[in-house]
């Protein structure tokens, strides 16, 4: 005769008694992330901060506590000009990506009817990002160059007699490449916020007599602000830290803060580069703080 045993009936298995106090458990749970952030973020930052006060010559660094690096960095006219130039790129790229990003996201969220199509088109937007940044950037060169696609087209059609010079190796080329690289960082968060807008809000606005433009300015844009703020943070921080795009697309004729740091490092002036990095970090963090003050993004997170 078969015996039937019900699960949970009968003698319970002996319980293993490992008791961890709730306090210790909490610390243990937080430990892995703390470790990663500590080793890969806090420690390097601390090192940069420390090194920025060191002394150096052409071959070596000397542990010290000097403010010389900061004095040189902030006292130099070149630094200020470079910062201004970087900020100029940041503002231009931000304005253009915001404009393009908003309309792409708006089109996806409000004009594409089916969810499946929305997702397909959104994935299409991300396809260029499957290639490397550098390749996408470099592929502009044959398009914009002196004998590139655009110039040969213009010359052959007789619109201009000589190739247009400012297409490549100019601020225009830098901004164009950056817009190309960073627009998706604007599209994604804005699309995300727009998708969460209850469509009945648009109907309610129409019921109250709002025109399409009024719906946009009074309902959709105010509600898309958190997404715009997140996109802005992405784009601004990326542009402020960019050196490769500036170097490649300006052909060395334009400067950015990160490019300046790279040059300092290639001259083994690590403490000077570190001081520069600290200044840039403070500037970018205060910009992010400013954005967070203006727009409340907590709802999006």
């Amino acid at each position, binding site marked *: 005769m078969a015996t039937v045993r019900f699960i949970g009936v009968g003698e319970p298995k002996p319980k293993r008694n490992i008791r961890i106090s709730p306090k210790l458990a909490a610390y243990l749970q937080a430990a892995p992330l703390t470790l990663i952030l500590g080793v890969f973020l806090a420690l390097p930052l601390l090192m940069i901060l420390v090194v920025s006060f060191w002394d150096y010559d052409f071959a070596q660094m000397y542990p010290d506590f000097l403010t010389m690096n900061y004095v040189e960095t902030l006292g130099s006219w070149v630094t200020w000009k470079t910062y201004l130039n970087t900020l100029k790129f940041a503002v231009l790229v931000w304005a253009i990506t915001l404009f393009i990003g908003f309309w792409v996201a708006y089109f996806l969220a409000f004009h594409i009817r089916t969810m499946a199509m929305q997702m397909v088109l959104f994935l299409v937007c991300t396809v260029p990002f499957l290639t490397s940044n550098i390749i996408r950037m470099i592929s502009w060169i044959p398009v914009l160059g002196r004998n590139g696609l655009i110039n040969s087209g213009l010359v052959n059609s007789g619109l201009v007699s000589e190739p247009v010079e400012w297409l490549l190796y100019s601020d225009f080329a830098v901004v164009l490449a950056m817009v190309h690289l960073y627009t998706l960082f604007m599209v994604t968060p804005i699309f995300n916020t727009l998708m969460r807008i209850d469509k009945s809000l648009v109907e*309610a606005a129409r*019921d*109250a007599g709002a025109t399409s433009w009024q719906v946009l300015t009074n309902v959709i844009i105010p509600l898309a602000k958190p997404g715009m703020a997140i996109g802005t943070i992405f784009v601004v921080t990326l542009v402020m830290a960019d050196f490769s795009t500036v170097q490649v697309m300006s052909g060395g004729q334009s400067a950015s803060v990160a490019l300046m740091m790279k040059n300092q490092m290639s001259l083994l002036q690590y403490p000077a580069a570190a001081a520069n990095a600290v200044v840039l970090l403070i500037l970018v963090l205060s910009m992010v703080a400013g954005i967070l003050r203006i727009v409340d993004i907590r709802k999006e997170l």
Partner: protein
Amino acid sequence: MSKAAEIEIASVSKIYGNTTAVHAISLKIPAGSYCCLLGPSGCGKTSTLRMIAGHESVSGGDILLGNKNVTDLAPAERGTAMMFQSYALFPHLDLVENVAFSMKMKGVDKETRRAKALDMLKLMQLEPYASRRPAQLSGGQQQRVALARALITDPEALLLDEPLSALDPFLKIRMRAELKKLQTSLGITFVHVTHSQEEAMALADIIVVMNDGRIEQAAAPRTVFERPATAFVARFMGDHNVISGRATSSTPSGLSLTVPAGGTFSAPACGMPEGDPVDIAIRTDRVQIGKAAQDGLGFTGSVSNIEYRGSSVKLTATGAGIEEFTAIISDREFFEQPIKVGEAIQLSWHAGDVIVLGKAQ
């Protein structure tokens, strides 16, 4: 504020691709009345409301408000205001700005529109919350803000899309009373979409029962309950037993119908030809325990379920080819002679309580 408008729907239909949501319905809602569009989900009641509001295009037919054809007008030009199911309050605006939204769109200056919105909020007893955002309010308060926002446009008709569905049962009953009071004091036409027959009965001057894109019956609540037009209405309104069968004899003095593999019941004459399928309804509270006074006005069945409801007891019985027959018996009557599940029981009713149901058009 009282310039109510009659709403007339003339063979209006709505077609989405291959599916027809509304089949050429016609309806007249008198000025100043409270009309409930009632039906199960997917019956076309919300589509109908949205077509009246102008948020859905009309595939065929005309909609008249007052004596004006509004079929092709924008929502705001119709003189209607809509209250949305989830209220659709603007989350980024405070209450005053929410209520003043339509005036802002018209370009009314800030002082005037704020003053007017505050007056409206005062009327809705929401003044203390004027500077709050909708998310900081309770469901009932949000509903009042939505009402204030809709009413500030001074509409001739207010359209409400399941306005009470988001509230808890207790609040639902309170807000229901407030809606009725508001409609009475404003005197404008209210069109209210609901799937709750209880809500419709409590509020409406006219109930429009819809099913599958068609109107089954449009009448006063009492008529709908006491003389349901079709089997669907009788079942949907509840508290009715529907018996389906075929007319076996039809004479000017009466009709008798036979349930397949079951009993024969008598009903008042209705000119139905013999052999046709026919449905009759008997209200559950008009059924008694005991032998029928006359053949065809009762049957013997076995009790399949008993539910105690306080003042009454709900008996469900099976027999004479009827799957489920419900009787509501007063608690006193039941406990004088208690019955158990599985026992045989005689149920009967009066000839005057039999309603012959028609077919849907």
